[in-house]
């Protein structure tokens, strides 16, 4: 990430300096305020979901969920702590229900449980790949945008989208097994 970021940023700033030196700082400042806005928006989203998750945890709903998903979690993530198993189950459930907003905070909480060292563990890699390729039942953003631009049938991409995400999920999970072997039980 260090090299990619530095090379791309330096190249882009250099090119921008040739075109319009005055805009360099403006673009940088716009970007950081955009980042601040995004972080605040995420804060609002996480606030709702983390609040609800905590309630679910307190009334042992999460425990029940992770007991149901235990066989699947064991195979995907191997031996992880009870707290991590809870977050991973919440994550899986949010992904399957298509509530992407809720998937991120649960994944972050899970990562913070499983990762204590400097090198990402197998379970961390698996969690990342599962989320990056997650099966999407309803691509709501795209459908909404298509509808607003006057598409004749905004929802007709659901099927190809579903098939595509299914393909990427299978390939992604398979690649983790290839690269890291089976999960330790």
């Amino acid at each position, binding site marked *: 990430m260090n090299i990619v970021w530095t090379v791309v940023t330096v190249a*882009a700033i250099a090119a921008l300096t040739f075109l319009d030196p005055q*805009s360099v700082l403006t673009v940088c400042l716009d970007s950081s305020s955009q980042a601040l806005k*995004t972080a605040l928006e995420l804060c609002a989203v*996480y*606030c709702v979901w983390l609040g609800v998750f905590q309630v679910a945890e307190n*009334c042992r709903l999460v425990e029940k969920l992770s007991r149901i998903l235990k066989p699947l979690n064991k195979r995907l993530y191997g031996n992880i702590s009870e707290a991590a198993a809870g977050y991973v189950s919440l994550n899986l459930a949010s992904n399957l229900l298509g509530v992407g907003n809720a998937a991120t905070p649960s994944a972050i909480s899970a990562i913070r449980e499983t990762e204590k060292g400097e090198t990402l563990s197998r379970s961390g890699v698996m969690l990342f790949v599962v989320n990056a390729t997650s099966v999407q039942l309803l*691509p709501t953003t795209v459908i909404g945008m298509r509808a607003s631009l006057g598409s004749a049938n905004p929802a007709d991409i659901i099927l190809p989208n579903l098939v*595509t995400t299914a393909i*990427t999920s299978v390939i992604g999970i398979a690649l983790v097994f290839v690269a890291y072997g089976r999960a330790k039980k």
Partner: protein
Amino acid sequence: MNYVVPVLLITVLVYGLIKRVNVYDGFVLGAKKSFDLSLSIFPYLAATFIMVNCLRASGLDIYLVRFLSPPFRLVGVPTEVVQLMLLRPFTGSGSLAVLADVYKQYGVDSYVGRCASCIFGSSETVFYVASVYFAGTKVKHTGFAIPIALFCNLVGGIAACLLCKVM
């Protein structure tokens, strides 16, 4: 599908009441964590956004697209969506803007428009997600996580272009 979230929320809260836990205190306790979380993400977001916005403002991404479109065409990806596939791993809002451009230029229901929809729907902002996930942990070496995710995005993009021809 519109009922998923409301039903979920009501179920959890009512279940909490039945089990006699303090729902209000629980919610506040959980919600409190969101501030630290988003604060730890902010610097990573800023770095990513600066890179992407400089890239777009300088026009370098167009050159990159020109350079990369022949190999993409070879595997069935039309040139018009290469920019979308290129920006998608870095930025959600940036690639959404590109998607809107594609819609306007080629039509929402055209083959290119449907391809672009499917690419956007099936891919993930890999670098963005990575910075969000690993912020606040000690993780420095992410191993195969990012390469695998990027490869899946690529395969997904190619599959999307093929599937949109037949579906």
